């Protein structure tokens, strides 16, 4: 029997969402001698998680990333009586059919806590994947328009329109109130729709007019904005999930600091609004960065400083929030970008794509807004969260 014990647990077991569901495995050294476990290698779900469907058929997981130096190292030493935990998130493919599945830890190599003859295994954890609701995942979004590559100026409304606008809004609200009463009371339309879509948009920008000393910034750059967008009526949220696979060395505290900084910068600021019977005060935009070992949207190399969207400084908690903006599809806003002049970078009043220390503005969620509109076949506007829709 292996010296390590593996215990598996999941916060939620019923109605879980494939692709977002997570479990934790705790490894405890129940022996009297220290024992090794390669935590890095054991963090690859495909190497250690045994997933079965209702008929006990094996459910294949996405392949692990190519082994790196840490995968091949001798691993972490666990003292007698001590435990360590590993979180596995997003390892179930979103295309899995709804129903019951069983998951267990299964390590059959010494680096993973066991051996071929005597594998380290946990008990089974049974979960139920919830049925697909709403938009079918993985298909092309009709009418998706990439975010505009420049800033569209807001036109001043004429006086007559400004005077008539409040009356028009009042009439429209009355109409919607009556419509929603009919739909929800008589046709029993529930506000339980949840729709998700993987977004993958190529983005380019050309920087010009860099001042002396920064000429190297002149050039054309390209990347892909990738995230999972979920429009969730029960919680009135528009959730943007970015899965990031890290390459390199970072402490849990540094990783947590990234997450805190990014979510503080991008969350609780804006919401998506449209005239609707459900979530009449809009869908709060919630940005969630998850660190995964496979199935990533982006790969980030960990270094000593942040040098672009794919290379972040381990101790940096400012510029990483700017780089996340690129992952959401936002363009830079310094010098001249795609013909629009912004001036110097890091201006005191500049928004996050100019000055990473400052918060974002509505246009930085433009790709999210466009994707939400395509997902619902509707037109959304991006409104500060403190305002009414």
């Amino acid at each position, binding site marked *: 029997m292996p010296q390590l014990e593996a215990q598996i647990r999941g916060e939620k077991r019923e109605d879980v969402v494939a692709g977002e569901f997570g479990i934790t495995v705790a490894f405890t050294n129940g022996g009297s001698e220290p024992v090794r476990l390669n935590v890095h290698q054991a963090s690859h779900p495909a190497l250690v998680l045994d997933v079965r469907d209702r008929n006990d058929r094996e459910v294949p997981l996405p392949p692990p*990333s190519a082994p790196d130096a840490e995968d091949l190292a001798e691993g972490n030493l666990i003292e007698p009586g001590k435990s360590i935990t590993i979180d596995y998130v997003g390892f179930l493919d979103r295309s899995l059919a709804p129903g019951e599945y069983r998951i267990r830890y299964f390590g059959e190599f010494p680096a993973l806590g066991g051996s071929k003859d005597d594998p380290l295994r946990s008990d089974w954890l049974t979960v139920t994947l919830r049925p697909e609701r709403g938009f079918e995942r993985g298909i092309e979004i009709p009418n998706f328009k990439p975010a505009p590559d420049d800033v569209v100026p807001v036109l001043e409304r004429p006086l007559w329109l400004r005077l008539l606008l409040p009356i028009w809004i009042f009439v429209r609200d009355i109409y919607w109130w009556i419509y929603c009463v009919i739909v929800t009371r008589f046709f029993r339309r529930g506000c339980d729709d949840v729709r998700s879509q993987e977004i993958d948009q190529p983005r380019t920008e050309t920087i010009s007019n860099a001042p*002396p000393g920064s000429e*190297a910034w002149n*050039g054309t750059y390209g*990347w892909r904005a990738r995230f999972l967008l979920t429009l969730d009526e029960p919680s009135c949220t528009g959730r943007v999930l970015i899965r990031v696979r890290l390459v390199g060395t970072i402490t849990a505290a540094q990783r947590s600091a990234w997450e805190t900084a990014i979510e503080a910068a991008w969350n609780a600021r804006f919401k998506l609004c449209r005239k609707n019977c459900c979530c009449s005060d809009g869908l709060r935009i919630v940005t969630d960065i998850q660190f995964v070992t496979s199935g990533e949207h982006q790969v980030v190399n960990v270094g000593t400083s942040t040098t672009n969207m794919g*290379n972040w400084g381990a101790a940096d908690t400012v*510029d990483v929030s700017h780089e996340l903006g690129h992952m959401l599809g936002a363009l830079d806003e310094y010098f001249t970008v795609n013909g629009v002049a912004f001036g110097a970078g890091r201006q005191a009043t500049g928004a996050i794509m100019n000055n*990473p220390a400052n918060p974002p503005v509505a246009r930085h969620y433009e790709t999210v807004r466009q994707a939400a509109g395509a997902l619902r076949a509707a037109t959304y506007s991006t409104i500060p969260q403190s305002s009414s829709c």
Partner: protein
Amino acid sequence: MALVASLIIDPTEAAAAERFVAACTVTNAGDGDVSINVAPLSSPSLALEIQDATGAPVRLPPPPVPPSEPPIKRLEPGEGTTATFAGFLPSWTEPGAYRARCRYVAGPGEPVVSPWVGFTLTR
């Protein structure tokens, strides 16, 4: 100013984009001291030029917002400064043969560039 650039890519063949590491060195080949702005060497997006097998450019993500004050480094004759870029190739890059060179943009004139170095992404 007599600067020369050189580039090493290691390994020259790998199955994952994140495996490639580029080391770009700018050396003072002149007889006197030279002060250089090292900001252009601060990001792979600024210091590396990459082409695919057809010669088409491989675009890298945008560089970080530039610093308010350019960082200056003094190089004595024969001295060099090296910038190392681990995982410089974007994860969405298609498998194939590529070449890269180090590019140091010192000002409005022609940049100092290294010879091209080939590498292959297999999968």
